[in-house]
């Protein structure tokens, strides 16, 4: 099955998740093409075992713009490519639906598995915040984005591939979206990525007045404090505490979550932790699927008892 993998390139390097998508494609096909808009990326990609590396060139592709990206890929799209694979990044979420509509082929986003058996592709998507999995079989060509961490880069096969470079005409693309330089809101915000131990707060903490309970646990454990998205949305903790796809991606020795349900967007940011301990009232919370230690119970009773125990010892 002929597969085309789009390689995202930013800050001078290939996006790690794009290489995971490439590893996925190599696992199921011997006919993989990688496509990029950047010469530097192409020069790296030619060292993998690929049918070819497509380098699309146009000055309008030097910085991200969804309209130019969409048209460039529309221009080179061929029916032979049974599936186009992408990393499930924020950039992909911004422009690939547009490509789906333009090509009239479905886009299966945020897939956790992709496989090909007897030339038939099957993908797995999570729904209901990770409570269910859907196995889907496309009847036509399709686009597919792969969730972070589902395929391993160390399985990438090396080789020597050719770069085929093409100049793309994008003169007819309307200039209706213009972007400015990216920036960070909080200078000197806390960096959770190096933390050994993280106590993380979710909706299950109930109300803002309960936040100090988590803070005290964090103090006695000498940990960092993290949170899920809703806690930041409510304004209970600042944005730089947020863990997940829109926040930080962490991998501490212990991730201790208090009332975090574990929606997909949160799991993406912490599933690489060495150990996950979770307290939640809801026994069906998706966090328990990935927890090493599962506690179904009332964190408002358990945590104070634990703090007391640690202090006594």
């Amino acid at each position, binding site marked *: 099955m002929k597969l085309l993998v789009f390689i995202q390139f930013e800050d001078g390097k290939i996006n790690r998740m794009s290489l995971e998508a490439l590893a996925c494609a190599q696992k199921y096909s011997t006919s993989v093409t990688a496509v990029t808009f950047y010469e530097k990326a192409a020069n790296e990609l030619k060292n993998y075992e690929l049918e070819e590396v497509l380098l699309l060139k146009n000055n309008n592709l030097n910085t991200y713009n969804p309209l130019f990206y969409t048209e460039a890929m529309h221009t080179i799209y061929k029916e032979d490519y049974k599936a186009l694979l992408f990393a499930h990044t924020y950039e992909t979420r911004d422009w690939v639906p547009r490509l789906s509509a333009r090509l009239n082929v*479905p886009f299966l986003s945020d897939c956790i598995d992709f496989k090909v058996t007897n030339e038939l592709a099957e993908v797995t998507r*999570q729904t209901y915040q990770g409570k269910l*999995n859907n196995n889907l079989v*496309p009847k036509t060509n*399709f686009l597919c984005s792969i969730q972070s961490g589902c395929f391993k880069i160390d399985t990438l096969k090396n080789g020597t591939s050719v770069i085929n470079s093409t100049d793309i005409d994008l003169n007819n693309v309307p200039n209706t979206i213009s972007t400015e330089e990216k920036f960070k809101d909080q200078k000197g915000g806390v960096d959770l990525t190096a933390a050994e131990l993280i106590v993380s707060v979710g909706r299950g903490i109930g109300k803002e007045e309960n936040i100090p309970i988590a803070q005290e646990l964090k103090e006695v454990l000498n940990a960092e404090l993290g949170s899920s998205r809703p806690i930041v949305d409510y304004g209970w903790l600042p944005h730089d505490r947020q863990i997940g*796809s829109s926040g930080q991606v962490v991998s501490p020795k212990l991730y201790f979550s208090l009332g975090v349900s574990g929606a997909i967007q949160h799991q993406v940011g912490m599933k690489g932790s060495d150990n996950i301990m979770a307290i939640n009232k809801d026994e069906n919370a998706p966090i328990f699927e990935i927890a090493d230690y599962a506690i179904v119970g009332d964190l408002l009773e358990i945590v104070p008892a634990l703090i007391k125990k640690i202090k006594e010892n």
Partner: protein
Amino acid sequence: MKICVLVKQVPDKDSDIKVENNENKISNQNLNFITNDSDNYAVEEALLLKENHGGEVVICTFGEESATQVIKDSLSKGADRGIFIHNDLNKEFDILNISKIIKNVLEKENFDLILSGLQSDDIGNGQLGVLLAEHLNMSHGSLVMETKMDSTEKIKVKRELENGWFQWATLDLPASITIQSGINKPRYASLRGIMMMKRKTIDTVKLTELNAAIDEQLTLKELYAPIKSKKTEKINGSSQEIADRIFTILKEDLMLL
């Protein structure tokens, strides 16, 4: 300014989601349905834009009969009218087909802005706003955390990127914008708002009466609860017993104390 907000009715996040026996669909029993979380923020942003720049806010949803409730809830908060696209086939469609159905209804309206929540809490495709931008020849911005309107032709949006990065983009109108949760503080409906809602119009369009070109390109082979691959220690007992066990794990197994 004419603003459309796309809202979706979804099961409450804490719902116990179960698959019907041997059928690839979820059981609707014991489910509590609400407006999708990020859609509430989109409704609020539309109401704020209307308050500051004038215009009309139209709420649109695609769903089964019960979904009119999410339109009513938004009308009670101050939106002006509703468009209900009734899925009278009671069938599930993939997001590309849904976008074509909605496009069919919205194209006559010539909206200046379409707002939607960035992602639904049930199926979670996170694509509808961008798909519609392409179908309706609009500009778009996704994962938006702030909007600014300094002219009648353009809107500025602050987009959220990964790892705490942001970016401002300027979009020509008409534009479709997907709203990230936390952009504002969604209001509650007032009693007066609920009374006024009863006099507002909701136009119903039936899917079976629409000439939407639906071609099903996906087959759902299996729907199931994920199979656990990790070994998990379940810690039971009284709060004190649990605390004692956690203490032992922290101290002896993980050596963190």
